[in-house]
């Protein structure tokens, strides 16, 4: 009986857990409770993914009202894997959380922090699993507002302005999405995504629908941090608490990418988007600029968190490039990279969190000789960096491989393939900066002295970092799982849009 209601349990469990966290003030109890809830959500997401892979798309009517009069949940393999990413990263980050939070946030606010965290996760899960476009807006707002709150909790006072800027830009994005929903509704009369797709066939030549698509795309692109709308991201990721950066970097932009895929392929359909509106002509150049400009700016950063934030902007460029190919191979590559990047970036930011915990800073200057001071964490950072470059035996290589294959499949895109390979050189440049400081430079005597005084990084922090980093290696060597799910996701996505 429970298995019938799994789709709604995925959302309701963390949703109801959040107010319970607020009631349950004691911070250790709240952490344990939140941890349990996140692992339970991970279990549900895994069960849902397996069911969707075996039995096909799931439909769940909320309240028993049929679509389009009620809200309906619709899950396909693409949604399934995104659910897995969000809940999995949340579960690992929460294991990481307690010690690092003690350092960064006042103890009497932890219970509120965990409530906000659970709601952020709920919002992201809600966007992924729903089949109703206005429901997407509501859950987008839930996840966005919680993200603003979480980011503002950073210890540095610049976190506040970063959160405010993100709030302003994010709300502009949400309002654009609302405008887009309104325009699409005006011409079709429905809010259910499948129904909308069916009815758009009659009205897709109208200027209103084109404007609707434009506003929806721009709104989602702001949330996705696609160049040039990425300006909120570097500050937000740099100044947020380390576990928040790890969580958001691995999930928020991925869910926005999912939303874009859903809108482009399921709702509006390839003919309208790529043939009539020629989205590829706009997105490909922007994606390439994202990759090159962001990677270049990353090379000159002195704060490693900021460097990785720019690297994220570049990786988002790869995602957009992949689905810009509008082919099954392109979408497969996009989904594979979605999963792998979540893992890579999550691992890197968790490792940086360990570093910040131990030495109190993430400036390159202060990381000198870390290879000797914190050998295991330094090794994990290097593995993460290898992923970003795309060295064989890492998950990053699998992503790059599929991306290049998707580019080469369509004859006219081979310059893009070359550009992608060239951009890996830029990644080498910024990863080398980190590696050089970690291993080639001797540690300062003052650092060695202060290291004696600091406690070693606890297992609760090292373990999730290790799991995620080694996960990237395992998936680099045995990519079957990711590739299979991605291929199935692409089939469904492109099949439905026919």
């Amino acid at each position: 009986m429970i298995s019938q209601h799994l789709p709604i349990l995925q959302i309701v469990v963390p949703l109801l857990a959040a107010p319970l966290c607020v009631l349950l003030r004691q911070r250790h109890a709240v952490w344990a409770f939140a941890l349990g809830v996140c692992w339970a959500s991970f279990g549900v997401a895994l069960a849902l993914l397996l069911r969707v892979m075996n039995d096909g798309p799931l439909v769940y009517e909320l309240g028993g009202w049929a679509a389009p009069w009620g809200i309906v949940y619709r899950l396909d393999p693409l949604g399934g894997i995104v659910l897995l990413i969000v809940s999995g990263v949340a579960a690992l980050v929460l294991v990481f959380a307690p010690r690092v939070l003690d350092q960064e946030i006042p103890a009497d606010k932890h219970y509120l922090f965990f409530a906000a965290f659970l709601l952020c996760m709920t919002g992201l899960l809600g966007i992924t699993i729903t089949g109703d476009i206005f429901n997407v807006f509501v859950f987008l707002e839930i996840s966005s507002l919680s993200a603003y709150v979480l980011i503002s909790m950073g210890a540095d006072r610049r976190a506040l302005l970063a959160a405010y800027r993100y709030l302003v830009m994010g709300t502009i994005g949400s309002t654009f999405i609302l405008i887009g929903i309104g325009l699409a509704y005006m011409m079709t009369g429905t809010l259910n995504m499948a129904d909308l797709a069916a009815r758009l066939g009659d009205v897709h030549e109208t200027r209103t629908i084109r404007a609707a698509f434009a506003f929806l795309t721009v709104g989602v692109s702001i949330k996705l941090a696609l160049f040039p709308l990425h300006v909120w991201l570097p500050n937000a990721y740099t100044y947020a608490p380390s576990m928040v950066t790890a969580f958001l970097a691995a999930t928020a932009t991925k869910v926005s990418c999912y939303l874009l895929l859903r809108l482009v392929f399921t709702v509006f359909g390839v003919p309208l988007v790529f043939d009539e509106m020629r989205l590829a002509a706009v997105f490909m150049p922007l994606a390439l600029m994202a990759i090159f400009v962001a990677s270049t700016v990353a090379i000159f950063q002195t704060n490693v968190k900021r460097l990785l934030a720019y690297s994220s902007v570049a990786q988002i460029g790869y995602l957009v490039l992949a689905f810009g190919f509008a082919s099954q191979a392109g979408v497969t590559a996009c989904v594979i990279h979605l999963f792998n990047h979540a893992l890579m970036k999550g691992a890197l930011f968790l490792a940086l969190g360990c570093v910040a915990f131990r030495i109190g800073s993430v400036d390159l200057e202060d990381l000198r000789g870390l290879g000797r001071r914190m050998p295991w964490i330094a090794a994990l950072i290097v593995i993460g960096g290898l992923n970003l470059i795309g060295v064989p035996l890492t998950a990053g290589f699998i992503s790059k491989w599929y991306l290049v294959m998707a580019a080469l499949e369509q004859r006219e895109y081979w310059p893009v393939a070359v550009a992608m390979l060239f951009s890996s050189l830029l990644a080498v440049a910024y990863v080398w900066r980190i590696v050089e400081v970690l291993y080639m430079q001797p540690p300062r005597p003052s650092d060695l002295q202060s290291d004696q005084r600091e406690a070693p990084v606890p297992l609760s922090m090292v373990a999730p970092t290790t799991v995620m980093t080694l996960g990237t290696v395992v998936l680099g060597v045995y990519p079957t799982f990711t590739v299979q799910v991605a291929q199935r996701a692409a089939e469904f996505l492109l099949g439905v849009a026919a």
Partner: protein
Amino acid sequence: MLSPGLYNYWIVVVLMMAGFYTLISRGNLVKKLIGLNIFQVSVFMLYISMGKVQGGVAPILIGEMPAHGHAATHAAHDIDSSHDLHHDVHAKESPPRHPNESEGVLSDVLPQIDASPSLSPAAVQLAELQKTGDATIVYSNPLPHVLILTAIVVGVATTALGLALVVRINEQYGTIEEDEIHVMDPEQP
């Protein structure tokens, strides 16, 4: 001639852009949030404009609730009796009722919405589709109203959060002007 056509939408677009301009051009953090509010309210006006039907009334059922046999029966009966407290004049009238005598709750406040004689054929068709039991009452579309009710609440929640951030920023920096904040903490690339 007084039917605004598309003109209504254009004015709403102008209002949206006024709010949007305030949001992105002003440096004062509170002014930005005021601009955001105006932007959002104008978007709501766009939605509500699309729900209006010429010659329609607010989507609150006028008159007796039609008979039914659910568990909702009791609830409806109770509502009907309180309905009657407001306008017991037509409690036993038989349909179709002439809309000019309609005594929906708002009829004392709003000018008579002159529905029947000038309902266009399209509106009559719509009334039939709405199955209201009276072919001359047309209701405006309730769905945009529902969406906007949610959006209004989301908007105020965002404003509240933004204002809390502004208060904290003021505590830390002593100012709420972006330019002055950049002087204190210079922007990095």
